[in-house]
């Protein structure tokens, strides 16, 4: 059902929802950017419409709601091992179409690849997704090429205009809350053209793995891993145990975000590492996003949000790399 309501009514609705839900949305952190006098837009808890940053792309994705940067799995106290408790409240997440498609990639890894991950599932099952439209493309986006520019599987779509809030609800709870609101036809805004487009080769021959194409990245990449931390489809973690410094008998087991670009990712006990070279790491990441994942699960992993390009301190462009690989494959097939 579609509705049109005013902003006061929307904020009242938020207040009601906050009793049972934590609402996460992209927020502007003034002065929080990497450079002087720049802001950072990342996810945080909100309680009013005005706190949500609708006008720009968030630097970081929504994934930390479902995959916390550091998540405690167990608490240890002497001989007792206790599972961490789930959050008391359910969650509502505001996100754009590319990110809603990314949710499917997270589900695949955490619910379908091997056994169900219970820590992911307990958050996932209690999270509702609210789509934010895109009137125009942002810098570095290539969602149209990736087929992620439109979504229908949202719990609600919300658009804020100068005076009003437009809502398309697929969620009973909202329909009930908005029973007295004015019905209105609402179609989500979506882009049909980006400034950047990519063409992904159908299959990538082994020769591309050994191409000198990757040497460029060996020279430029500084292995900071930012591209993977902002990526809405990167899911890797490392297990980490710790004991409390003021009482060594108690501690916990956590999982923390890990990155295939950062030193130590492949280190096995005894010291051997499998991809020391940064070009090999770039090749590993690119192949995962545009080839390996698809071979295993039938759709592309990358959803074209372009955040990796936005964040890279060395101005390495992922979309440019995809097109370089495509050109190389075309050359080989000629």
């Amino acid at each position, binding site marked *: 059902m579609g509705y049109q309501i005013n902003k006061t009514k929307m904020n009242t609705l938020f207040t009601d929802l906050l009793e049972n839900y934590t609402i996460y949305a992209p927020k502007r952190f003034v002065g929080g950017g990497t450079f002087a006098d720049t802001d950072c837009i990342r996810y945080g808890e909100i309680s009013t419409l005005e706190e949500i940053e609708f006008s720009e792309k968030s630097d970081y994705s929504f994934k930390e709601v479902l995959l916390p940067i550091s998540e405690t799995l167990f608490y240890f106290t002497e001989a007792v*091992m206790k599972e961490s408790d789930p959050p008391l409240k359910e969650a509502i997440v505001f996100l754009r179409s590319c990110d809603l498609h990314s949710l499917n990639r997270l589900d695949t890894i955490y619910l379908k690849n*091997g056994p169900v991950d219970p820590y992911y599932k307990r958050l996932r099952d209690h999270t509702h997704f609210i789509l934010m439209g895109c009137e125009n493309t942002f810098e570095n986006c290539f969602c149209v090429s990736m087929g992620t520019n439109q979504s229908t599987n949202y719990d609600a779509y919300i658009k804020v205009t100068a005076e009003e809030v437009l809502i398309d609800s697929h969620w009973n709870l909202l329909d009930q809350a908005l029973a007295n609101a004015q019905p209105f036809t609402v179609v989500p805004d979506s882009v049909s053209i980006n400034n950047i487009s990519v063409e992904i080769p159908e299959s990538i021959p082994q020769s591309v793995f050994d191409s000198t194409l990757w040497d460029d990245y060996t020279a430029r990449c500084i292995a900071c891993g930012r591209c993977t931390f902002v990526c809405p489809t990167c899911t890797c973690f490392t297990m980490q145990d710790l004991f409390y410094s003021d009482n060594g008998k108690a501690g916990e087991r956590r999982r923390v975000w890990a990155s295939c670009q950062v030193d130590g990712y*492949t280190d096995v006990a*005894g010291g*051997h590492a499998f991809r020391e070279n940064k070009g090999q790491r770039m090749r590993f990441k690119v192949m995962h996003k545009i080839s390996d994942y698809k071979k295993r699960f039938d759709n592309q992993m990358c959803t074209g949000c372009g955040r990796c390009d936005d964040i890279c301190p060395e101005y390495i462009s992922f979309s440019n790399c995809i097109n370089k690989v495509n050109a190389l494959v075309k050359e080989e097939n000629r």
Partner: protein
Amino acid sequence: MTTTNPYTPFLSEIKAVIKHTDIEYTFRMTFSGDAKPGQFFEVSLPKFGEAPISISGIGENTVDLTIRRVGKVTAEIFENYVGDSLFLRGPYGNGFSIDNYIDKEIILIAGGTGLSPVKGITDYFSAHPKKTKGFTLIAGFKSPNDVLFKADFEKWKKNLNVILTVDTPIDGYCGKSGMVTEYIPSIPVKNIDDAIGIVVGPPMMMKCTIDELLKKGFKEANIWISQERKMCCGIGKCGHCKIDDTYICLDGPVFNYTKGKFLKD
């Protein structure tokens, strides 16, 4: 939690400790489920961490885990094992299927701790020598001080063809020396089209050994390998062991060479 939690380890008692070298011990652990050679457990000490360790022996209600003191977790295990227990979860991975090797000629080549995941295969054919048409174990270690499973070697020598070699001999050592690859050409094989090669060890050793087997005429489809990678979860989530579209923890660690040769890190 409604779903069973695959990250929850169970307590396993240390029944015995076999000391091979100063830094390599075998821990015999209580375990009553099914286990195959080449599978692995995530072994942990709460508050210190988890580490993937392959099964180096399967007994009645026990599994052997041969642990090398190289990391944070293993160092703690070595310090605090006495009369104690460890936490385990698993077994994970596909493991070796002995059925694939029955009634065949087999050359098994292992480098260093790479012997652990294939020790169960050697134990099996040593206990059932009639189920093979010829079994050769070539095991290489860095030096005589690094040799693992010394007592087992004595047992295996009785009914299997065993070649134990070290890269660097020391004074007083009178056994064989040199790389494992040097011994492959002279192993007699009656039916090369059907002979099985099993190779586990460090990456470079595996590459050179497989080249040597192929040179000898082994078919790619008859060569089996096991891959060692960093693994934090063992259940296809953490991503560390992924190569191409393959998760070593779910799809391996044991691969037929026809698939294994395409795995590019």
